[in-house]
């Protein structure tokens, strides 16, 4: 892993550690890098769709919920590694953490009209595995290429 603040544009990168604040361009670039790496490693359209969605949800959760009470300059740290069999991504924010089990089930009748709370369930639905650290401010998501 080679830590860097921003990824060079257009470079073929299979793994990196990136630190960025709530900045659309930086966030887009790291997501694009991961999707491009998946393309190079033979992941199909459905796999790229799944990971693209999980990345968007994970990053949105970090800034929107994790950094709710922090200045917009606060950074998150993302690490990713892509090879021909799997994609591993971690997202760590500087917030106080949360307990995933405290997020109400958005598919229950009484919650279906809630306007938030679906990010984690979509990550769970689309990724092979999702784990949180004990503090709840770091999520690791793994996507395994379908056989």
């Amino acid at each position, binding site marked *: 892993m080679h830590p860097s603040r921003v990824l060079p544009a257009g470079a073929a990168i299979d793994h990196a550690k990136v630190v960025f604040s709530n900045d*659309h361009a930086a966030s*887009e670039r790291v997501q694009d890098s991961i999707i491009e790496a998946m393309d190079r490693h033979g992941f199909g359209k*459905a796999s790229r769709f799944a990971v693209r*969605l999980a990345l968007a949800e994970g990053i*949105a959760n970090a800034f929107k919920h994790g950094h709710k009470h922090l200045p917009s300059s606060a950074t998150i740290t993302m690490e990713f590694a892509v090879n021909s069999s799997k994609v591993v991504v971690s997202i760590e924010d500087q917030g106080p953490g949360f307990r995933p089990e405290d997020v109400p089930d958005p598919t229950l009748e009484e919650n*279906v009209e809630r306007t*938030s*709370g679906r990010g984690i*369930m*979509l990550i769970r639905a689309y990724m092979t595995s999702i784990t949180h650290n004990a503090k709840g401010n770091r999520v690791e998501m793994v996507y395994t290429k379908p056989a």
Partner: protein
Amino acid sequence: MAATNSRLRIKKADGVVQVEFIDRNILDEANIQSIGEEVSALVDAEASPKLLISFANVDHLSSAALGTLITINNRIRGKGGQLRLANIDPQIYEVFVITRLNKLFSIHETTEAAMKTFT
């Protein structure tokens, strides 16, 4: 709504406001917020809004976009209006199914099919 930074293509046909997204990816929070504000203004401008949202150009959609659609749906229902969604790519439709929002929204395969359901 002819704002130069509009993220929507809007036209009116047979009393229905038809909205199409310009962005292929509706993932970014700031974009979603501005889409929500633009659509809300359309809804507010109608006495009994009939709105058709087409996803024809959309490749990706996040949960924040779903939240905005729920807000728009509630706003329209609050005014006794009707909302229809159409042209949703199968991969995106699956997101509606996983979140069970396919039960909440009136979703149709094509614009023509959706137009026939307005009353």
